[in-house]
């Protein structure tokens, strides 16, 4: 008889698990795997329909690449502040944790503000969901991503609120890590979307 399989322990003192990942983290990874297919299907749809609009306005008529680049930069920087939040709580520095959480949420908020501005500008220039195929694919893909960022902001603000009420002790640093996984995922997806939607002519 062989010895029983090694049971790894969650470093944060939760239940032991077979994989060594906590249940929460493993589930987040599974969820993100599912999200990959969700965005994969949407991005494929966009690529398939690229350049097939029979009427305008077309991408080159409406895009303001420098503006979107700036807001994309903010979203990417928010990944950095997210990393800093996690590092802060792992050190037990709760003041910095709240600072970086707020910074991350604000950068995400700026990105969303930029997206709202962009959407309204496009709309004023005559591009709506129903105008043409480009409008349908553009608004649904980027809007879907925007909803994900917004939910992420809600998650970050909830963590911030918990921390303010003292309910996010250092032992629960993994909650920040898991929210961070989601946040980084949404950022990475934006890199793909930005490339596919804006940069590839």
């Amino acid at each position, binding site marked *: *008889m*062989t*010895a*029983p*399989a*090694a*049971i790894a*322990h969650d470093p944060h*003192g*939760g*239940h*032991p*698990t*077979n*994989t060594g*990942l906590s*249940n929460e983290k*493993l*589930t987040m990874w*599974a*969820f993100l*795997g*599912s*999200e990959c*297919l*969700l965005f*994969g*299907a*949407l991005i494929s*749809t966009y690529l*398939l*329909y690229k350049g*097939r*609009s*029979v*009427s305008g306005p077309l991408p080159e008529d409406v895009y303001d690449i420098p503006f979107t680049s700036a807001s994309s930069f903010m979203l990417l920087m928010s990944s950095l502040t997210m990393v800093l939040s996690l590092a802060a709580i792992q050190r037990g520095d709760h003041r910095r944790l709240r600072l970086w959480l707020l910074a991350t949420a604000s950068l995400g908020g700026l990105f969303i503000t930029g997206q709202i501005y962009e959407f309204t500008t496009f709309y004023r220039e005559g591009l709506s*969901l*129903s105008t*043409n*195929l480009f*409008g*349908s*694919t553009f608004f*649904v893909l980027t809007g*879907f991503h925007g909803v994900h960022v917004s939910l992420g902001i*809600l998650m970050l603000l*909830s963590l911030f609120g918990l921390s303010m*009420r*003292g*309910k996010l*002790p250092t*032992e629960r640093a993994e909650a920040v890590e898991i929210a961070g996984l989601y946040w980084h995922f949404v950022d990475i997806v934006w890199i793909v979307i930005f490339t596919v939607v804006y940069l590839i002519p």
Partner: protein
Amino acid sequence: MATVLDRPDVETPSPSGERRAAYPILRRPRSTEGLTGWLTTIDHKRIGILYGVSAFAFFLIGGIEALLIRAQLAQPNGTVLDAGTYNQVFTMHGTTMIFLVVMPMSAAFMNYLLPLMIGARDVAFPRLNALSYWTFIFGAFVLYSSFFLGGAPDGGWFGYVPNTSITFSPGHGIDFWIYGLLITGIASTVGAANLITTILNMRAPGMTLMRMPVFVWMSLVVNFLLLFALPVITIALFLLMFDRQFGANFFNPAAGGDPVLWQHLFWIFGHPEVYILILPAMGIVSEVLPVFSRKPLFGYPVVVFSGIAIGFMGWGVWAHHMFAVGLGPVAVSAFSVATMFIAVPTGVKIFNWVGTMMGGSLRLKTPMLFAIGFIAMFTIGGLSGVTHSISPHDRQQTDTYYIVAHFHYVLFGGAMFGLFAGFYYWWPKVFGHMLSDKLGKVNFWVMFVGFNLAFAPMHWIGLQGMPRRIPVYSEELGLQAPNLASTIGAFIIALGVLVFMVNVWVSKRNAVPAPADPWDARTLEWTIPSPAPVHNFDEIPVVHSVDDFWHRKYTEDEEGRLVKLPPATAVAAEQERHEESAAAEAQEHAGHDEGHGMHLPSPSFYPILAAAGLPIIAYGMIYKQYIVAVVGAFVLLGSFYGWALEPSVAPDDDEADLQPPALAGASGNGSAALVGAAETPALGAGSSTAESSASTTEEEQS
């Protein structure tokens, strides 16, 4: 809580004040009895039963729809249904049987059995599990409410555009279908993530992946398929929703859109879905056959790897549903070859099952009959499936009754027979009494004859050119006889289902308590009493091999013959094996006492409340009352906040912690036994405080 009190910047007047603050909306349900008990339950076994009962109810509804279809087609130019109603009925029959019967029935088995089979006390996230169930129920509710709100969906279960576009289907039926499937999709995705985590993370000591029962393996594959396939149909439904409700152009050819995209997205989901439906049944049959052949499963690793191979290859064959669309010779050839290949791992499994029975001492009890029926019917369905891979042949078959015959052989003769084998096999474990074997055999033979009479003639009907989804056919077609036979067969199946229900009722009335291990079985769920106690295992088992329970009961002599260990020896041998591993365990657990305490989570209102937000959103969207949708979103979000702030184990139980253990034990009903059970020598690693808190938790539960 201690952390909170330690922090000077937080206002917490008293522990009880703190507790009230944590429950701004709802009081924690205390009772596990009665209706509230069922509505707030987070016990995986009760949720499994809820799934099973709901799925069976939908099986009856979907069956009635099937009988309506067959009644209409019994004679040429049938007049039972008008064409519009006929469209609704066959659409709802397909949608119901796939999304509301086979999927949730598989979920019922997975929920009930996975934790028992891997030696866990519950799934990874019990409240999330409850959320999955209630989300499924509310999704089904949205779908079925269409019958009372202007007509059910009528676009077929695959909802091809442009037939389902707003131009050709202006009513709300398709909208109900979209939102119903989106909501049940959420249920399945959440459930899949939960069960994957459960299987990967919560196995008992020694339960390595390659010692898991095959049913657990197949469930793991199915849940990965669900996790990755459902987002694709979610997006397809999303795009259709935008097209129908907000004037988007995804499937509008006039604007450059392409209806074939819908077919691709649908079948990229749809083909893995086929394996989602069949693999759980394959898992059940792989459990039943060894028990009733009194032999280990022939080629366990091969069965497991075939299942995994099916899981991967299932992603590369979707376009064989679309050979008639005109994909071009390269795509058609590639998908033809892939489709032929996927028959290989499936065929391998069939040989494994036959090999398991070969040379075994077969006991032809009802579960075994259904399992053998599964193999035979599934083989026929599988073979007619391979004929679709030959594209020219497929052109002849597409949209005829031949296809209907094929997938009913796979999904009824396959999946449903497998699930019925599961009903008869696990009934004593779930309900504590056996189903009558005599009535069970009647059930099997009636259903078997009815099934073949209903669906075998459809091969012929289809090859003679009768199309699917057409409400009437003319006399000149010359297919009255096989159509009538098929209708008679359908009603005989209904009789078989009736026999099953009579069996359930009669067996309950004359209930003879079932022993823990009525079938002389091989897996861990049979080590515990029937019905399974609320905490599953008094102590978490330690696993040494595949079919561990079997090896506790039997050994082999020098000539390889099976020798039953006398109970006393069995206990001693088990004790010995335990002590070996307990030493290793104790070492590993040094400094940790969390391993074996029973932290059973408490019931909660939030899962059902959160799930109730979804149909509100759906109705708001369907009727374009967006304020209603926003209210629904707030219900959902608010419930999640309540949920997140509510600890999974009610804090009142922590308070009981403060009582001296003896007092807690004395005041409980039967918790003394649990304390005793929890303090067996093998588990001495746990500290006494952890044990007593475990027992009081348990006491609060009961």
